[in-house]
Structure formats: structure tokens, C-alpha cells
């Protein structure tokens, strides 16, 4: 992708709504939802919403949040996005302890398992690390600079995650590449040693989400309507489950051709045995069982949710894995549904996370459309027609013909 495309992509996205995101505290003490620039946290134990204190001296988020995550132990939380801010939060009690300014918009975040480093990826494909030394003494962090540690060549990184044993940092880009890198003892010197690349996705098929599961496996979901199982040590592809085709979700893409809908998110239970998959246009979610000894993926069940225009955008599971959290749209209606009906925190929680429960249906439907198109353009790589490409080339000055 060249710079002009990137900047333009950024620009056109200004008018689009970021998909809503959900993250669940590993032991389900709280749940966080990001809607646009708004971060909402609900304390599941106290049964109340959390008012977010910001002692960091940094600005609050003022543009779409693109990534949120809890640390492995749940003590830390990070939010980041289009406003180029990476906000690091203490979760007990909730307060922002540090705000890092990124040079570019941020597309993915992760917290190292020992909670000593926060890593984030920017729109140019560079992964940065921030050293959290000092935080554990509960000091407010000062002068922590982000340091670039690795990069994908000019492709937007869509997800970033640490392996459960902390050995690897795994980054996936919008083109197709999943890179598994050794996470060194001194990450600020750079993460140079590549363990593997998970290849096998055709370069034109965008990857939307992945999750690392125990014993060195990884599950990924992509724009070609598949979920794949990989071995991260060798990078080999072990199994491919054509979820769209198997569930009979053929859809028209507006043109003549029909295609299967993209996987928009997935999340696995901590033991890796069950994978929940959100698929564009599927009103509900799909559950896959992952057999780690046979190294296979198979569909167990499609959970249809009979809400109208229910389009999940983000999924979350706590370590306890009792409940699956689903966020559906970015405007605030109907943000979560639980596997069973026992919502811890009940109505209050819903109210907090939704903002308001009584939004009119028309608004919701309109919102659903916006989300759909936001998702689509996030997931489907831009394909320019030949004329458009030519036109774009002409407008650029680095292509002058020299002979």
C-alpha cells in the first residue's frame, strides 16, 4: 500500500464509525466497551458503572478507539485509536496512569504477560513498546517513550498478541501476514528474531482477527470466510474451516459475483477448545470446536440471535470462560448479549454500556448499516479499478518517467 492510499484510507474512514469493541477482565471483575471515542467500563462485582479517572495529564480520547485490552492478570488495561493516544489504565481502582502519544494512528494493542510492557501498532505497520517500569510501585509514570521494536512493511497491523507463555509476540497485518517474533528480555532493543510466519492465506485475503491458544496454536479468522488453525512455532497451517460455506451464508457483494461473508472477530476459551466466531451478516455467532490433539476445527453450532439486524463486531471471553460477550453496533443500542440470560449486574449494566436502552429502532437500523459499511471497508481491501489506478498514478510526482 502506498502512502497516498494510506492517507486517503485514513481520511475516508473519518466519516465512518469504528466498530464497537468489547473486552472482558480475565476474572470477570469488569467489562469494557469502546464505542467511537467513548470508553465505558462496568464493574461486574460492584454492580455499578465505573467513572474513569485520568491522572495521567494526557488528553482524553477524542477520536475512534480501535483497540482495547486487559493484561493477563487484569491489573492493567489499554485503550488506543485514531486520536494517536495510547492510554494505560490501572484497573484497581480504575484510573489512567499514563498517556503515550503515538506519531500515527493506533490499530492494535497488547500488554506483555508480566505486565512490564505495553505494545501498540500504528497505521504504518510499526510495533512500539513502552516500558512500564515504575508502574508497579503505583507511581504515575513519567517520560516513558515508545520505542519501535518491529515492523510489517507498510501494512496496517490489525492485531497484536502475546503467547500465553510470554515467549512470542504475534502480529498480523491487513494484507495477510502473521508474524511470530521472539519477545526478548530487553524489548526496547528491538524484537528482531522471527520465529515463523504463518503463511497460506493468499496475499489478497485480509485477516481480521486471531487468537493464540495454549500449546503453541493460533486460530485466525479472515475476509475469505474461513477460520484457520496454525502451529506458531513452525508457522504451518493445520486446518481450515470454511465457516461461511458450511453455514450456507452465500451473499451478494453488490456486484455480479456472490461471495461468503467475512469473519469479523473471533475469540477462544482459554483452553482453546471452543472458538466463537462473528461473521458479517450472520445474525448470531458460530461456535467451533477445536481439537488440539487431532489439530482440527469443526462447527459445533450456530447460535442465532433473533434480534433484528444483529451484527456482532467484537467478542470477548473471560478466563473463567463462563460467558461470551458480544458487542453488536457502535451507536449504543443493544451492545451485549450473553450466552445465557444471566447478566451479572443486570439492567444497570446494560444501561451503562448501552448509554440508553430506548433508542428507536430506525436509528438502530441506520446505525447497523453504518457499522456494516464501516466493517466492510475495514475488512475488504480496497480494490481500485484500472482507470482509477491510472488516474491515481498520474496525480503523483514520484512516478515521473526517467530514461
Amino acid at each position, binding site marked *: 500500500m502506498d502512502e497516498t492510499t494510506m492517507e486517503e484510507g485514513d481520511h475516508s474512514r473519518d466519516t465512518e464509525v469504528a466498530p464497537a469493541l468489547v473486552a472482558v477482565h480475565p476474572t470477570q471483575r469488569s467489562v469494557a466497551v469502546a464505542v467511537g471515542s467513548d470508553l465505558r467500563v462496568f464493574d461486574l462485582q460492584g454492580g455499578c458503572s465505573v467513572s474513569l479517572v485520568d491522572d495521567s495529564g494526557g488528553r482524553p480520547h477524542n477520536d475512534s478507539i480501535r483497540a482495547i485490552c486487559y493484561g493477563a492478570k487484569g491489573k492493567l488495561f489499554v485503550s488506543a485509536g485514531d486520536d494517536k493516544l495510547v492510554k494505560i489504565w490501572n484497573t484497581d481502582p480504575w484510573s489512567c496512569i499514563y498517556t503515550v502519544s503515538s506519531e500515527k494512528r493506533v490499530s492494535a494493542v497488547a500488554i506483555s504477560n508480566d505486565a512490564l510492557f505495553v505494545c501498540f501498532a500504528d497505521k504504518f505497520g510499526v510495533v512500539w513498546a513502552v516500558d512500564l517500569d515504575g508502574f508497579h510501585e503505583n507511581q504515575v509514570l513519567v517520560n516513558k517513550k515508545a520505542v519501535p521494536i518491529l515492523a510489517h512493511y507498510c501494512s496496517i497491523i490489525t492485531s497484536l498478541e502475546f503467547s500465553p507463555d510470554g515467549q512470542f509476540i504475534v502480529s498480523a497485518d491487513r494484507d495477510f501476514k502473521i508474524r511470530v517474533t521472539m519477545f526478548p528480555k530487553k524489548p526496547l532493543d528491538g524484537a528482531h528474531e522471527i520465529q515463523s510466519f504463518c503463511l497460506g492465506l493468499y*496475499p489478497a485475503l485480509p485477516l481480521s482477527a486471531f487468537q493464540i491458544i495454549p500449546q503453541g496454536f493460533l486460530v485466525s479468522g479472515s475476509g475469505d470466510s474461513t477460520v484457520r488453525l496454525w502451529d506458531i512455532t513452525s508457522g504451518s497451517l493445520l486446518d481450515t474451516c470454511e465457516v461461511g460455506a458450511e453455514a450456507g451464508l452465500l451473499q451478494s457483494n453488490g456486484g455480479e459475483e456472490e461471495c461468503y461473508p467475512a469473519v469479523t472477530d473471533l475469540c477462544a476459551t482459554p483452553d482453546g477448545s471452543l472458538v466463537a466466531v462473528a461473521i458479517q451478516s450472520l445474525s448470531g455467532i458460530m461456535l467451533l470446536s477445536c481439537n488440539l490433539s487431532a489439530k482440527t476445527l469443526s462447527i459445533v453450532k450456530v447460535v442465532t440471535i433473533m434480534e433484528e439486524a444483529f451484527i456482532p463486531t467484537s467478542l470477548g471471553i473471560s478466563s473463567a470462560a463462563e460467558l461470551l460477550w458480544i458487542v453488536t453496533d457502535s451507536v449504543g443500542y443493544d451492545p451485549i448479549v450473553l450466552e445465557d440470560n444471566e447478566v451479572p449486574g443486570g439492567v444497570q449494566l446494560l444501561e451503562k454500556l448501552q448509554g440508553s436502552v430506548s433508542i428507536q429502532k430506525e436509528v438502530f437500523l441506520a446505525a447497523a448499516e453504518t457499522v456494516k459499511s464501516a466493517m466492510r471497508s475495514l475488512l475488504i481491501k480496497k480494490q481500485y479499478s484500472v482507470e482509477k489506478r491510472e488516474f491515481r498514478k498520474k496525480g503523483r510526482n514520484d512516478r515521473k518517467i*526517467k530514461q
Partner: protein
Amino acid sequence: MCSISVSQVSFGWSISVNLVWREMLENEANPYLSKTTRLPRKRFYRARAHSNPLSDSHFPVPVAPSQVDYSLHYPQLFPSSDQDDGSQKIKFADIGCGFGGLLISLSTLFPETLMIGMELRDKVTEYVKERILALRVANPGQYQNISVARTNSMKYIPNYFEKGQLSKMFFLFPDPHFKEKNHRRRVISMHLLDEYAYALEVGGIIYTITDVEELGEWMKACLEDHPMFEALTEEDLEADPVAKLLGSATEEGQKVARNGGQTFQTVYRRIMPNI
């Protein structure tokens, strides 16, 4: 008169190029061939001087190294794709190979080694293909171990080579990209060196040369700072037959030499990181 219509042919090129080539050889008055050498003339393949490596082009990319079809690149050594048991792999890669001069010199120097040039410009790649095919025809049994692929090396190296597959990588006279904001387009950078270190075996060697002093310093600094590379000693360099070729084997090098330009050469070895 025959035309060269191979630019549209993707992976099936070697066969169609062969046909075109034979046709061309039969045609005495073919303007694409030099009368004296019968090799394709460079001026008919002239292209833009520089490509923007950041732009997404549409050329086929192998899904993974195991999918690189050796029978298309080295047809005499791999008569059919099913006979390729994967035991012999490409060991040398010339990144941004230009018109292919280095590959041609190395081909006879290391006749048992498979090598590939990677080149972003379509026309230049076509020229190199033609050139290799002509050499194969003119020298039966020779030049079977070299080939070229049109690709963006900054993006697709992991699609061509497995971890630790390569023993040598060459970066001869790469585009300088002077402006600070374009430094990230340079083929040698700290981040891209991670990928080269991945593709190179421990002990493998990376060769760089440029006539642009600033770029020479940049490449040296990157390699020096990278924990997975160490400089070759003077003795190592003396003993290395390839190091001597860097300034003279390629078209760019010859041009610089003709103009009496200075060159800056940096050669490093892939080592185990000390973390």
C-alpha cells in the same frame, strides 16, 4: 514479425517465453535482438528508472515457499513439479537484481547452486528472463541454475524462502531514496533486516554495495546495530570470491566504474543473536 507478448503471462512464462524465443531466433531481422550477440537488446526493455516499492502491484505471489514452482524456474533441473522433492532449494537471492548481471556471473562460478533474482519492475524482469533463456540456448547445459521473479522483496521474501534457507543475499546498488521521509522505502533498514536474518542461515552472508556514500553509511549502520549480523573480517573478505564481484558484475556497477565513481561495500554475516 513476432511480438513479445510475455509480460501478461504469469507463472506459465517459461514455456511461452521459450516459444517466443525460438520464433525470435528464427527471425534474422528481429529488432529485439542484437545482431552481434543475439541477446535481447536492453533498450527495448527500458523502463522507469525507479519503482515505488510501497505501491501494491498485481503480480502473482506464491502462497508459501513450498508453493514456489521450481519446475518453472529451473526446468532442466526440475522437469516436472511432482519430481521436486524439496531437497534442493534456492540458496542465493539477488534483491533488486536489475538486468541480472550478477546472477549470470555467479551461475558459472557456483554451477550447483540455485539462485534467484527478485525485481520489482516488470519490463526489467522480462528482460532478465529473456537473457537467461538466450544464454541457456547458446550454452547448452549451462545457466540452468538461475532465474528471476517479479516481486516486491520488501513484502514477499517470506513467501519465497523458508527460515534459514538462504546462504547469500545480495543488495547491489539499491535505490538511494534520499529524502528522510522516504528512508522507510530503503531495502535495507533495521526492520527489514529482521526478515533477511530470518531467511538467511546462520553463517549466511549479506552483501551490499552502493556508489552513494550516505546510503553506504546507512546500510553499514543498520547492519552494525542489528544483533543478528556481524562484519566479515578483512581476511574473510579476501578469501571470498564473491566479494570481488560486487562492483563489477552488475550493469549498475559497470556504469559507476565507467564514470570512475567511488563505491562503498558492506558485507556482514548472519549470527545467532546474543539475547
